[in-house]
């Protein structure tokens, strides 16, 4: 070890308590960042998986333009071929078919606008969490032909209960009047008001018949093994559809395109998180700056002697930077390891949201949130701490370059 390195290292431990406290501050900031980022990533996973489970699936195959206009005539003309293409993709765990149209829903007492959704009950249960969100009654069975599920708020508004009749009136794919009568078999409570206020689920066969769909659907909804599979599956499927069906009228959309609002709210949350983390790091950076400035001021005379001996200011800066980076790196290493350990513990055991387990379960959310430890959550926080603390220590390290030997010797 060179004398300069020894010098920097020993200087670090000249005031052990101060150094330990500074390292602890850096380590704590790092630990907090690793945990908080992992927690955020974990909650985003829950948010996405819940939303994907209720609404969109991870991916959908639709007619080009349907996502924007949602017109009843924009259909997937041959769902069987798309199903065959989808079935060949190993990362896809399940898929289902849906058809949707706006309709007037009338009970004996009231009429409200609703989104009538035709679902295939058996495959729907494998793709979405709708079957688990039954608040009252039962989910649709494969053999059901004229039964329906209504959102809790819609049922409330229509003042309709289980077994009562509901009339759906809308426009068919061909422009004809679509009308059907269904019996309420179950009430769904997803916890998402927009969905619960507007949705009526009916068997796909009934929908196709009532809305003159002629065997077509609006959405082929896919569920992948994990969120990480979404991007590769999308590419694979696009190629497959182009090659097998030779259709340029179909598009594959992922959850970010299907639910742009969700992505935006995640981004917003991430940004507000980062503002908080930035403030935290700035506070830590000031504490490091204070420590380091004190350490430099205390040794001004020593620096004067070193300059008198012929040490160049650049060399002095190097020694100080080595000192500060050693301190920072030790803090970051301890913080990142401790943060990863704490996060891993909670990633395995999860964190229960006090008194909310029942409500969460009711809305199809897990009772425990598991932070997601990843290379990103460990490195982002540590990286930011490293950059900001290192930048902070540049000031005192470069300040010594301006020392005038004779003045420093008098300090």
């Amino acid at each position, binding site marked *: 070890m*060179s*004398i*300069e390195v*020894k*010098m920097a290292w*020993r*200087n670090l431990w*000249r005031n052990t308590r101060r150094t330990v406290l500074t390292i602890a501050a850096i380590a704590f900031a790092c630990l907090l960042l690793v945990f908080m980022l992992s927690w955020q990533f974990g909650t985003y996973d829950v948010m996405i998986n819940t939303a994907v489970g209720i609404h969109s699936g991870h991916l959908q195959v639709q007619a080009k333009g349907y996502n924007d206009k949602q017109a009843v005539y924009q259909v997937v003309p041959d769902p069987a071929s798309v199903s065959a293409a989808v079935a060949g993709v190993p990362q896809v765990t399940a898929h289902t078919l849906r058809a949707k149209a706006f309709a007037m829903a009338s009970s004996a007492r009231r009429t409200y606008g609703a989104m009538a959704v035709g679902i295939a009950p058996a495959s729907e249960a494998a793709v979405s969490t709708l079957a688990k969100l039954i608040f009252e009654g039962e989910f649709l069975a494969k053999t059901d032909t004229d039964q329906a599920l209504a959102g809790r708020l819609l049922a409330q508004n229509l003042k309709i209960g289980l077994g009562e009749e509901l009339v759906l009136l809308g426009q068919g794919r061909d422009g004809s009047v679509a009308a059907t009568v269904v019996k309420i078999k179950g009430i769904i409570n997803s916890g998402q008001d927009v969905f619960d206020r507007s949705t009526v689920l009916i068997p796909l066969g009934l929908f196709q018949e009532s809305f003159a769909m002629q065997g077509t659907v609006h959405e082929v909804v896919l569920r992948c093994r994990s969120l990480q599979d979404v991007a590769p599956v999308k590419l694979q499927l696009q190629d497959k559809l182009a090659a097998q069906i030779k259709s340029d009228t179909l598009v594959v959309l992922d959850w970010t395109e299907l639910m742009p609002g969700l992505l935006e709210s995640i981004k917003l949350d991430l940004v507000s998180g980062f503002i908080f983390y930035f403030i935290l790091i700035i506070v830590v950076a000031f504490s490091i700056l204070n420590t380091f400035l004190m350490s430099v001021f205390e040794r001004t*005379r*020593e620096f004067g*002697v*070193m*300059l*008198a*001996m*012929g*040490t*160049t*200011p650049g*060399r002095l800066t190097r020694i100080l930077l080595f000192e500060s980076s050693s301190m920072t790196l030790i803090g970051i290493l301890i913080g990142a390891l401790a943060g990863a350990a704490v996060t891993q513990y909670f990633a395995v055991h999860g964190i229960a949201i006090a008194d909310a387990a029942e409500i969460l379960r009711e809305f199809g959310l897990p009772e425990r949130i598991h932070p997601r430890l990843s290379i990103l959550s460990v490195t982002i926080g540590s990286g930011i701490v490293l950059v900001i603390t290192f930048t902070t220590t540049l000031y005192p390290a470069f300040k010594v370059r301006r020392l*005038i*030997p*004779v003045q420093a*010797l008098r300090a």
Partner: protein
Amino acid sequence: MPIVECDAVNKIYQQGRVEVAALQDINLHIPEGAFIALAGPSGSGKTTLLNLIGGLDTATSGTIRVVGKSMAKLTQTQLAQLRLSQVGFVFQSYNLIPVLSAQENVEFVMLLQGIPAAERTGRARSILDTVGLKDKYKRRPAELSGGQQQRVAVARAIVANPAIVLADEPTANLDSKTGQGLLELMQQMNTERNVTFIFATHDQMVMQYAERVVYLKDGRIKTDTLKQHRDKVEPK
């Protein structure tokens, strides 16, 4: 040729709105191998003159040449290089680097000069042996007495074979016996290695050892006495 030449040197400090003349019209030529004391009371300007010769400070006017180089024309980096290669410093309060051992303190100057590690170690130990600090290589300054620390400082000042050693009150913090031992050591270096020693002091003992005493008062040279023989100094 003189190793140090000061011609019409003035140094004025600005203290608030008041100008304080620390040195006025200093003309001093010091030959190579001299053992010279700059004497005078506190505030007489002796340390200021020493700092100007060592390139730690710059003169307000006049010319200072050290080993033939005009100090006013050198940049800070060139001054640092000159100090590294030609000038050694010994300070009143030793000013060793507290986190380095005696040997490492001595080695530090050679490290700056780019001398390889093995050679550094050999030379540092040899010079520490010369100043009577054998077996104290690994001691940190805090583990050494004042006299021992000042010996390390002398070893550090001369290890790189400088042309000049500038010593500012080197005996001020030492008892007379230790101070005398140190002066004898420096005298020996002066004789054996022909190193020029310039002291800033008000210690009578240092003046007795010096072959030339330049007396300053109020920033001016009052007397410049060249002795025929160095005084014989009896231990106190």
